[in-house]
């Protein structure tokens, strides 16, 4: 009887000892954190959208420009691609990475100047070739008219 009681206490103790480990295993998380900056200064209250394995999580940056979202490690396991988008008003920025460890740091630089529709060279190129296309069509039609 004593042995039985002892074995119950021991197994109970073992169970209690094992409990945190199992609960820890269940709650294992992948953190994605980072700082959102604009010209090197932290951006407060930027809307941050983090995507890992098709699961979207959102957060707002705090007073130091930091955001944090947590995924269960089963949802966002190691090696998964992570995308972070930060938006503040009309400014925004992206960063990409992989979940390499429990806490993944992905900083985002917000840019309030977007890439132009045309760069200087491409704009000139578009204007010249666009104009040349017209001149080509014009020459064809006008020489046709004269003939």
């Amino acid at each position, binding site marked *: 009887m004593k042995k039985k009681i002892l074995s119950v206490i021991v197994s109970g103790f073992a169970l209690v000892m094992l409990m945190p480990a199992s609960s820890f295993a269940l709650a294992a998380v992948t953190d994605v954190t980072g700082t959102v900056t604009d*010209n090197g200064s932290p951006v407060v209250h930027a*809307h941050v*959208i983090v*995507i890992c394995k*098709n*699961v*979207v999580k959102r957060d707002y940056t705090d007073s130091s420009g930091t955001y944090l979202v947590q995924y269960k490690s089963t949802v966002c396991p190691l090696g998964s*691609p992570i*995308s972070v*988008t930060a*938006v503040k*008003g*009309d400014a*925004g920025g*992206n960063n*990409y990475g992989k979940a390499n460890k429990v806490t993944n740091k992905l900083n985002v630089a917000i840019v*309030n*100047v*977007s*890439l*132009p*529709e*045309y*760069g*200087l060279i*491409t*704009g*000139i*190129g*578009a*204007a010249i*070739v*666009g*104009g040349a*296309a*017209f001149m080509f*069509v*014009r020459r064809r*039609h*006008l020489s046709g*008219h004269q003939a």
Partner: protein
Amino acid sequence: MVTKLKNNSLKQNKTAARLLKRAAVFIAIFIIYSGVLGPRIISHGLVNKDGFQIYGGLGKSLLFGILALSILIYRNKKYVTLKNWHYTNLIWIIFSILAFYGAWQGVGKLIHGATGTNWPIFINIAIIASIVFALGGCFGSANLRTLTKAYKKELKITLALIVSFYIFLYLVYGLWQFLSLIILHCVKWLMSLVGPTSTIIPPRTLVFNKFGIQIAEYCSGIESIALFTALYALVGILDWAKLNHKKFIYIFPIGLIVLFVFNILRVFILILGGYYINPKIAFSLFHTYAGMLFFILYSIIFWGVSYKWMLQKD
């Protein structure tokens, strides 16, 4: 008599060719100045303050005006004796470069935190001076006086065109938020047809399950609209006598709408490429090239289809 007329015509052609050459050099200097100073102002967030916001539209309008004036002069060649380019014109060019250098330094001061109104005033004067001096350097002050007298009417028309174009640009640029919203919703719908669903994060961010993308001012197609309008107006100036005026005017809004549809397709294809291939490559490397390619493609299709019809005088 015939020989005299032929000689006059030859001289007119020579003068026009000379003028065009000098205009080409001036345009090159103008583009170099804009291309060097513009990005410095834009990338440091100075574009919307200190009076710099006027230069985006003003630069384009001025460039458009130079091309329009060149066409007008070419169409109405006059017998004007121009003085040869003299090395003393180089003094104007040196002044122009010095003024430009001053503007560059002034912008640097603003970037490093200079406040007050002195630097912005100095920079604005320096920018305008660099362009005016370059004009003097390319054409020569005596030639500029001669040309002003000979082409008074053409200059007045050009001035009216520059003002109209500037107002048009001002109105179009004011529409960018509305245009971006249309693109945002159209692209969301088009992407849902292909497969990927997305969510809109106000004001203008589209989030997919892989990345998010902003439909910003420069995705709204306003630059294409400005470029198309300029080319369209130049075509009008060049061929006004040959064109059916009603058709020419009617087809312009249709051309703009189809151009806007092309821009939606451009953004859609970029996002599609970003989704299925690589977002970094699609949005960084191909963003501006796609704009150029689509504009050229559109120009070929548009003029190929519409020009013959525009020429028909009912």
